[in-house]
């Protein structure tokens, strides 16, 4: 018997919420960099504006609720929400879109429910869905990847990107600056072979959408970093990705665009990785036990694929996450862990 002999102290250095949130911010870096390389400076401008709005709105909400402002701002949760929402928004969004989104995230979804830890829904996704329902046109026009933008259109430099977001200069709304995303293309075409689709539209890359695959790989790297630092357990993201993998493999018919595309296309397309590692893992709005998290994650994956293939929207992570947020209390009710020694009611 070789029992590990660990001497005291057994209590480890406790991580504060602020430290955890800073790690999450750090982990978004690879994905954000990939987004910036693929789609230009818009994402960084989104993040800048969103963080400013989030701090201002959080501080004013805390002041109205007579809570300590500095204490709650130091936990970085408002900033994380802002960054996650900014990543989800199309680059070069106007400032008022970001402001409305942050308002719904911070004020409606978080502070009205009682602040950090009391929100039944993921704040960033509430903001995103409120925007998607309210401004469908602005929210679904993604800029084309830089690589595909015609030469005669110049890519906005950082200053111009900021001016576009502040609506001081017009966004060049010309065909070519915004393009349908690969998920859109697969959804809207059903009379071609996937091969033809890929040959016809340059938006497709090696495995999935051009640029999108690197964005997703970036978020995968960030997510695995967080997993290694034990910020969350593997249950939610892995079961969500598995559900998407199984569903897309089941409904992939080998090459016609009437099916929804290959499993790899779905795993590395759209918001899959971002949703799996950064949205679904939100500890407040997800299920509590490990068994519950498996069900919760699988539900998100399942709903994501169902809405992508049969629903009205090209991508569905936000809706899937919100729908499973609704069911998290129910899942918790049925997957409550029994305390050790209390498991006396055996099945007969």
């Amino acid at each position, binding site marked *: 018997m070789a029992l590990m002999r660990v001497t005291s102290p057994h209590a480890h250095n406790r991580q504060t919420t602020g430290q955890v949130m800073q790690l999450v911010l750090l982990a978004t870096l690879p994905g954000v960099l990939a987004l910036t390389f693929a789609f230009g400076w818009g994402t960084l401008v989104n993040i800048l504006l969103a963080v400013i709005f989030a701090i201002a709105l959080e501080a004013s909400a805390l002041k109205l609720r007579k809570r300590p402002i500095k204490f709650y701002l130091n936990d970085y949760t408002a900033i994380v929400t802002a960054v996650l929402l900014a990543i989800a928004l199309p680059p070069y969004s106007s400032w008022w879109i970001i402001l*409305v989104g942050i308002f719904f995230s911070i004020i*409606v979804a978080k502070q009205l429910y009682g602040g950090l830890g009391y929100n039944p829904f993921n704040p960033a996704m509430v903001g995103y869905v*409120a925007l998607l*329902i*309210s*401004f*469908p046109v*602005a929210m679904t026009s993604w800029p084309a990847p830089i690589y595909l933008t015609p030469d005669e259109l110049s890519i906005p430099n950082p200053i111009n990107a900021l001016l576009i977001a502040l609506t001081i200069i017009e966004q060049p709304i010309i065909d070519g600056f915004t393009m349908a995303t690969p998920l859109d293309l697969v959804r809207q075409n059903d009379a071609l072979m996937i091969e033809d689709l890929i040959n016809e539209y340059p938006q497709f890359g090696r495995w999935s959408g051009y640029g999108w695959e690197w964005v997703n790989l970036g978020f995968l790297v960030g997510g695995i970093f967080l997993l290694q630092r034990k910020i969350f357990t593997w249950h939610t993201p892995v079961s969500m990705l598995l559900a998407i993998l199984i569903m897309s493999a089941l409904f992939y018919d080998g090459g016609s665009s009437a099916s929804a595309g290959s499993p790899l296309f779905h795993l590395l397309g759209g918001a899959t990785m971002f949703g799996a590692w950064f949205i679904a893992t939100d500890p407040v709005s997800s299920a509590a036990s490990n068994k519950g998290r498996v069900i919760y994650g699988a539900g998100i994956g399942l709903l994501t694929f169902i809405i992508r293939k049969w629903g009205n929207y090209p991508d569905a992570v936000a809706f899937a996450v919100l729908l499973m947020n609704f069911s998290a209390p129910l899942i918790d009710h049925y997957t409550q862990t029994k305390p050790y020694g209390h498991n006396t009611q055996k099945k007969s």
Partner: protein
Amino acid sequence: MTNYADITRNGLWDNNPALVQLLGLCPLLGVSNSVVNSIGLGLATIFVLVASNTFVSIIKNVTPAAIRLPTFVMIIAAAVTCIELLMQAYTYELYEILGIFLPLITTNCLILGRADGFACKNTVGASIYDGLMMGIGFALALYLLGAMRELIGTGALFANMDLLFGAAAIDWKITFYADYPQFLLAILPPGAFILTGLIIAGKNYIDNQIKKRNETRTDDAEKISKRVRVTGKID
């Protein structure tokens, strides 16, 4: 017994059917996406409430208690049919827009609630007045919600008023911001829920302020007129 000031206060504020009793939420949330819709439905509801309260009160002494609810529903349905035919005749487009919500007034709990809770216990005059006040309270809440949703949703107010008030009202529309992007959430059902919640919160806030002010007043009065006997510990 019947205090008309109390009835007014109850209907319009203290016991407002939409904001306190939360009755009739289905039409309240369903058709309040513009001012013209909410005025139309508000007027129809006032008419039905007054008519049903009147007749319920008239026949209250000859209605057996066991079958009173079916009787009330028959009366309400008759009143609803009247207003439906009237709107069909005079404001056909609005009738088309309000659609199923007009016949649904029959099932509005507010009307049955007033019939059973007030009209069948009170005199005809008081019942008519109660129906009027409750109806106006409901219509005002509906109107406020409709105005907020139209303003936030489209950036304008009083659009399409000609549907209700004839050709003279065609240019009543006030546009506050020309290039306003439609804020669809306010026009869709979730916006109605969120804004209703905010209106109720606002009403509760005003009530609390009033209560606080009254308390400080009575406190001052008590300090002057009464000696306070202290039995407990003073902090």
